[in-house]
């Protein structure tokens, strides 16, 4: 077989040949082709991922396992990760999104954690396109269809629309689970003499070589990618979750591994490599859905709802009988031996024999050339004076509120079960999602953010701003950041300017993570999100997870009460570059986003946290998309009361109302806390901007919006 047919480059093929000191078999070539695809081995992004800080006081498990783990107190940990399912969702929206949810849940499960909360990050094409509506409906239905049935609440997410995603919608699935730190599962605990078991669904032909497929640009005729779609069965997954947790709790398994991309091959070779052992697989023992499958098909099948277990020989019977109790198939499919080889046998003959470390870690890294885009300076060429001031501020604000990125997401999150498991303290629709950890009485605050427009305009600043946004949101809610997971969604890295954007934005993210002490503990990379017509904007998405020790230290939002004073903390003059307002009003993407000041960010984080902990405010909301105006409108709407806003306008009113960027928040402070609140924020930019009360949001000199008008614009 030709190595190129297996998806390998010449130098990769040579690397395999020289490691083996012989010609690889066809089966081995196919296996290596998938395992050395971008999706599985990160060959283009590995050098960049090294920029991320990955350790910190709370980090128990950094990148390298199925999910990262941070300590959350009293011997408990939170395992979390975000993963992309972009390409499958583009081809088959329902199934692609559903299996994305299923896959990330199994990653959490593989850490021995009970999956407790999910979130989804969605980027759709132009909202006016019928194709976008169809894709969006299918994707949302798939996420709900799977997540609801497995009983893991979807507690929040992020959705944005931009024509850049017309051909490549993005589906990033995040999940978090709770684990006792002394009971964490790991891929590095297998020892010679133990057995390899396969638990869950029978293996079929679905999704074969899906990983390779996720690493290539989508062909213009997506239907041609037919056989690579995976089908999910949330019912089976629910049983699998319960069975695995029970087996793990009972001490019946040594190690477990989810089967995602490249199925049996990746899960077993990963365990072999990480544990420093050899694994022999007997493919004849694998329960099949179709009898006539070839060895490589069995090895690479991405049939869903399967887990690989490593079990002590004397515990095998107990595991098999537990599996039967749950109605799940389970079979012994191999042995753990001394050595470092990974072998697969079928019909008595060896079809593949490769060094385990070669499979997972041997792929030569690719160093794509990076070059600053020629048009970078012209991207920055924008001044607010290019925009006329609106003559009707009320109409302008209402139109912005009604724009698809900011509102109208109820149809999405109401189709998700956000409350199952009785842990959801703050569900979808707020700046952060908050769950209660019943095991130790604390709260976890989670913020998902992405800002592709600013990242496109200035990748470094945009990357940093994305991370900062998530951390600011945590801080305003009262949480201390513990760690962060990221999904890097980009077009092809093989074009120098696109690789530069990737590299610069990762640098911005990494710097921000380091400066604000929020280490990266897990993540995922999805490249080649482009077709001949469109390429996506550089879209790094992050979820930051923070801890609130006591529920009384949570500061909520949308809780204004009459007489509260309103404060804007942070600068009054942020920027319209890459803002929702600019997009909405001019439909252009130009200008240079604000530079980030890490000292100021850190000061903001500290002061926001003490505001929450000392209960100095009644309501607090970070200012993000849509700027101050949108923050005011959302607070008005949720609080069910208006306000009189009167402030000096030292800059253009549109910059004041709609500008974005930098550490900023809107607080409502009750009279008896005014002094303490001011003292807390001394030395930080602080502006008193109004007082709560009345039936309208009245911004003196500019506009007045009734509660009804606001609700209507927000589409609820």
């Amino acid at each position: 077989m030709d190595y190129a047919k297996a998806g390998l480059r010449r130098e990769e093929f040579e690397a395999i040949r020289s490691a083996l000191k012989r010609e690889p078999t066809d089966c081995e070539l196919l296996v290596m082709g998938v395992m050395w695809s971008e999706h599985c081995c990160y060959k283009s992004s590995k050098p960049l991922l090294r920029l991320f800080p990955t350790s910190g006081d709370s980090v128990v498990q950094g990148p390298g396992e199925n999910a990262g783990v941070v300590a959350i107190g009293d011997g408990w940990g939170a395992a979390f990760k975000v993963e992309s399912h972009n390409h499958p969702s583009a081809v088959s929206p329902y199934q692609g999104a559903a299996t994305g949810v299923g896959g990330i849940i199994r990653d959490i499960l593989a850490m021995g954690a009970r999956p407790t909360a999910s979130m989804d990050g969605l980027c759709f094409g132009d909202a006016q396109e019928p194709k976008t509506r169809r894709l969006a409906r299918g994707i949302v239905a798939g996420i709900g269809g799977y997540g609801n049935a497995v009983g893991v609440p979807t507690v929040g997410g992020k959705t944005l629309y931009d024509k850049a995603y017309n051909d490549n919608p993005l589906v990033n699935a995040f999940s978090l689970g709770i684990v006792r730190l002394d009971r964490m599962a790991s891929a590095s605990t297998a020892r010679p003499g133990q057995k390899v078991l396969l638990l869950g669904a029978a293996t079929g032909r679905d999704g074969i070589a899906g990983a390779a497929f996720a690493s290539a640009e989508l062909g213009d005729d997506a239907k041609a990618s037919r056989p690579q779609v995976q089908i999910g069965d949330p019912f089976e997954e629910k049983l699998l979750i319960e069975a695995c947790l029970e087996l793990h709790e009972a001490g019946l398994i040594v190690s477990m591994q989810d089967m995602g991309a490249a199925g049996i091959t990746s899960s077993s070779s990963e365990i072999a490599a990480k544990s420093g052992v050899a694994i022999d697989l007997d493919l004849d023992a694998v329960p099949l859905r179709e009898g006539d499958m070839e060895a490589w098909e069995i090895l690479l099948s991405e049939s869903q709802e399967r887990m690989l277990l490593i079990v002590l020989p004397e515990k095998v019977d107990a595991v098999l009988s537990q599996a039967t109790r749950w109605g799940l198939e389970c079979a012994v499919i191999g042995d753990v031996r001394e050595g470092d080889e990974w072998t697969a046998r079928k019909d008595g003959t060896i079809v593949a024999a490769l060094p385990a470390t070669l499979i997972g870690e041997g792929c030569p890294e690719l160093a794509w050339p990076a070059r600053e885009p020629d048009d970078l300076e012209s991207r920055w060429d924008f001044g607010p004076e290019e925009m006329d001031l609106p003559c009707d501020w009320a109409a302008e604000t209402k139109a912005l509120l009604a724009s698809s990125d900011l509102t109208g997401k109820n149809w999405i999150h109401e189709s998700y079960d956000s409350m199952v498991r009785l842990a959801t303290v703050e569900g979808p629709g707020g700046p952060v999602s908050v769950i209660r950890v019943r095991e130790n009485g604390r709260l976890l605050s989670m913020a998902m953010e992405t800002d592709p427009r600013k990242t496109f305009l200035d990748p470094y600043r945009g990357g940093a701003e994305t991370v900062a946004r998530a951390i600011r949101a945590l801080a305003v809610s009262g949480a201390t950041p513990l760690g962060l997971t990221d999904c890097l969604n980009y077009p092809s890295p093989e074009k120098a300017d696109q690789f530069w954007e990737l590299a610069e934005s990762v640098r911005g993210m990494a710097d921000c993570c380091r400066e604000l002490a929020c280490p990266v503990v897990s993540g995922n990379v999805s490249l080649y999100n482009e077709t001949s017509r469109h390429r996506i904007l550089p879209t790094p998405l992050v979820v930051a997870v923070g801890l609130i020790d006591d529920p009384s230290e949570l500061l909520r939002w949308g809780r204004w009460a009459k007489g509260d004073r309103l404060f804007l903390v942070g600068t009054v003059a942020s920027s319209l570059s890459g803002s929702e307002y600019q997009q909405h009003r001019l439909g252009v993407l130009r200008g240079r986003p604000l530079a980030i000041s890490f000292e100021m960010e850190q000061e903001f984080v500290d002061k926001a946290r003490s505001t929450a902990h000392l209960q100095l405010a009644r309501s607090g909301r970070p200012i993000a998309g849509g700027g101050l105006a949108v923050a005011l409108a959302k607070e008005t709407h949720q609080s069910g009361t208006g306000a009189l806003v009167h402030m000096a306008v030292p800059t253009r009113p549109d910059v004041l109302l709609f500008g974005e960027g930098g550490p900023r928040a809107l607080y409502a402070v009750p009279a008896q806390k005014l002094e303490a609140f001011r003292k807390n924020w001394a030395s930080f930019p602080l502006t008193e901007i109004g007082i709560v009360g009345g039936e309208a949001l009245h911004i003196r000199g500019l506009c007045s919006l009734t509660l009804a008008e606001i609700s209507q614009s927000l589409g609820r």
Partner: protein
Amino acid sequence: MKVAVIAFPGSNCDDDVVQAVSDVLGCSVTKVWHRNRLDTEPDLIILPGGFSYGDYLRSGAMAARSPIMDDVRREVRRGRLVLGICNGFQVLTESGLLPGALLTNRHPGFLCRPCTVRVERTDSPFTGTFREGQVVNFPIAHNEGRYYLPPSDLEKLEKDGRVLFRYCNDRGETGDDFNPNGALNHIAGILSEEGNVLGLMPHPERSSDILLGCDDGILFWKSIQTWVERR
């Protein structure tokens, strides 16, 4: 008081119900796997929400045919209380323990949100501590919640006063705008003829802890406890 929660494969509110009931009432709540039999003598049996058997074919259909439902029938005949929440309600109609059927929502698609319902009577085992006409918030989360019964049977159900909860707005008014799924007569929960079986689409267990937003469900659990202890 002894409570048993039956878990079918695919149930996913079983742990929630166990947690809410034991937190609120401090009583012993046991989870019973569907393959085991119901041999203790619980005062209350709960069929929890979720997606039993994946909700494949028709929601609740396969769970309704599992052997443990014979035990549930036996306990119903003996006058024990049985509560089916959401998917549990669907199991009860499918098994014939309650009349009617729960059809795909008027606007097809899963719907999860806070929801106000009106307590129609307070002389049932499940509602003794409410005020008549009281409006409570029990969240909903379902795709098949549209209660249906042929017209003549529906009339009889109403005449017998077996509608216990009705969807309404926060002032207690009923109307199509406040009916999330198109249920006939805005029905959210009904009683069996003997009054000891309740099927309820909304989730009182999701409304049993103020930290999670609402605790109207506490009154519901207390009603049951009071009734059981009085007997």
